[in-house]
């Protein structure tokens, strides 16, 4: 009998890919083919909403990769999301052309208003879609690389790391609020018209964005899963559980952390780029520390260290938010806080984590399920309650 079981394709990925495929086909079909007013018609509003959730799910996935598997609790992933969003927004701004309020064929409206004479150098090239997509990956990736290099090399871990990620996103927010940064100040970038010459407001465009978002989510999941089921994924979990032991085994912990950190930032950037054309605006409030913390709550609710849980958590919490802010908007933050506290107290493993743990307790140790081994956060009942609490908080 082999000591290391061959990697098996678990049931969870199959379920996820199936659900995503069904959604990608059925939602646009129900939107376009079923006439308005018919019982199964999905309105364009709902399609856009689902597309937005899908982008959030990709952000949650990115966060789970670093938090759930490597124990790096980022409270600043909104910064990477927003950078990706801005890169996409800049492309869409350039695509407005002479149709802006001031009719300037080159300069976006806010630049005309602020008396810019020509396009700042960092806006050059964004009329090219491929260049913009490159920056969607590069801008968050580069920020993560620089930030991560310093933080991980200095061995900043736990809450201290979390706090400086908050500071990072807050600093970005303040910078982007400034008019002279050339990113539209507090109004951000908006009034987008078209992409590839196609009207953004068309139902079919919205459907296309939804399908692309779902495809990106599936690809992001495939990448994350490939990482966490590889030997590198095992090293990440080892770092999460006993960092200095990993170091004494000869692994350069900071390089491993930097790798997942940058991959995660790029995924968050893609999520932001998909988000912006669907909601039609990107402004500095996306950098707000609170948005990043909200993303952490999605992952906690769904179950960190499970990937699928992060996706589920993002969709559920945002669905709940859409409904709740429609009903009693002034109480939303209380509801969100209560949700986080209840999850921490009653479901510390999150929804998927708890389900996997139950299934794992039944199935193991008779047959080892690679899936539960890789996906469970801490498949043991809490031994040291205080320590568990600290770990839960990412300390």
């Amino acid at each position: 009998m082999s000591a290391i079981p061959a990697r098996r394709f678990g049931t969870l990925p199959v379920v996820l890919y199936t659900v995503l495929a069904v959604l990608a086909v059925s939602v646009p079909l129900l939107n376009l083919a079923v006439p308005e007013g018919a019982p199964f018609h999905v309105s364009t509003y709902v399609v856009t909403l689902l597309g937005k959730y899908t982008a959030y799910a990709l952000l949650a996935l990115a966060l789970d990769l670093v938090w759930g598997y490597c124990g790096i609790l980022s409270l600043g992933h909104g910064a990477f999301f927003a950078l990706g969003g801005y890169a996409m927004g800049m492309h869409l701004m350039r695509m407005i052309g002479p149709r802006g309020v001031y009719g300037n064929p080159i300069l976006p409206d806010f630049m005309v208003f602020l008396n810019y004479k020509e396009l700042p150098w960092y806006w050059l090239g964004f009329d090219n879609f491929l260049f913009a997509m490159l920056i969607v990956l590069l801008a968050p990736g580069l920020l993560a690389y620089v930030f991560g290099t310093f933080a991980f090399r200095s061995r900043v871990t736990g809450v201290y790391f979390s706090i400086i990620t908050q500071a990072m996103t807050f600093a970005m927010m303040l910078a982007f609020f400034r008019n002279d940064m050339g990113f539209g100040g507090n109004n951000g970038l908006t009034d987008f018209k078209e992409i590839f010459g196609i009207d953004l407001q068309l139902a079919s465009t919205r459907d296309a964005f939804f399908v692309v978002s779902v495809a990106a989510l599936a690809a992001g999941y495939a990448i994350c899963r490939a990482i966490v089921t590889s030997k590198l994924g095992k090293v990440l979990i080892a770092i999460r559980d006993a960092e200095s032991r990993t170091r004494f085994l000869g692994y350069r912990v900071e390089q491993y952390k930097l790798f997942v950190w940058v991959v995660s930032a790029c995924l968050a950037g893609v999520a932001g780029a998909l988000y912006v054309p669907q909601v039609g605006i990107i402004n500095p409030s996306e950098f707000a520390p609170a948005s990043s913390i909200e993303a952490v709550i999605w992952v906690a609710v769904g179950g960190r260290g499970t990937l699928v849980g992060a996706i589920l958590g993002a969709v559920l919490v945002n669905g709940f938010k859409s409904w709740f802010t429609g009903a009693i908007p002034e109480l939303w933050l209380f509801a969100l806080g209560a949700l986080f506290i209840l999850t921490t107290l009653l479901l510390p493993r999150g929804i998927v984590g708890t389900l996997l743990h139950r299934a794992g307790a039944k199935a193991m140790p008779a047959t080892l399920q690679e899936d539960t081994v890789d996906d469970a956060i801490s498949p043991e009942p809490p031994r040291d309650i205080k320590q568990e609490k600290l770990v839960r908080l990412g300390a």
Partner: protein
Amino acid sequence: MTPVSTSALLYLNAITVSFDGFRALNGLSLAIDRGEMRAIIGPNGAGKTTMMDVITGKTRPDDGEAVFAGVHDLTALDEARIANLGIGRKFQRPTVFESHTVANNLLLALKTTRGVFATLFSSVSREQDEMIQELLETVHLGDAQHTLAANLSHGQKQWLEIGMLLAQQPQLLLVDEPAAGMTDAETAKTARLLREINKSRTVVVVEHDMAFVRDLDVKVTVMHEGSVLAEGPLDHVSADERVIEVYLGR
């Protein structure tokens, strides 16, 4: 630093480490020969763990030399580099990866390239699998290979950690209190295991348990207040008046 010509595998010369004015190591000098097994004893606060920290790169000494295999200046290298040179360390409290299975713990310790991308694309080879099986036999954990390390008993965790050390194929093993918290039977088994390991590798054991040290039957170094107090066979050392004074008090 000027290279020292020494045949010793590990050579420490006049190592000094201070923490906020407290001298944890005070001119410590020590030479461990290839193939030797050495027991290091000493009262609490004698600097045994700090010495391990210096050798494995966790702590930088304020002064002194630490040379491995006659060529490598350990004071200039980081933990990962030193581990890859062939110095393995077992911690006082057993530290294994609790959410990994026993077999995966060994897999992670196996001597291979440690680069990020090499690790990402690596797969378990037949030889590696066989090596893991062999190690499982050596540390008596064959039946527990698919158990999560968190579910092992304290003694089993100690053995797993020794197994992980062996998987690294180090030239030098630093073992910090391997018998701590073990039953008598487990302690005797551990002493046998260490003697077995010593056939092919150099071993340094830090220990409190005198019965265990007697079991090992090797040269003993007594540390006190950050430097070496006495050295020699256990019987010789335990007859030394200064050692008696340190251990028993005035």
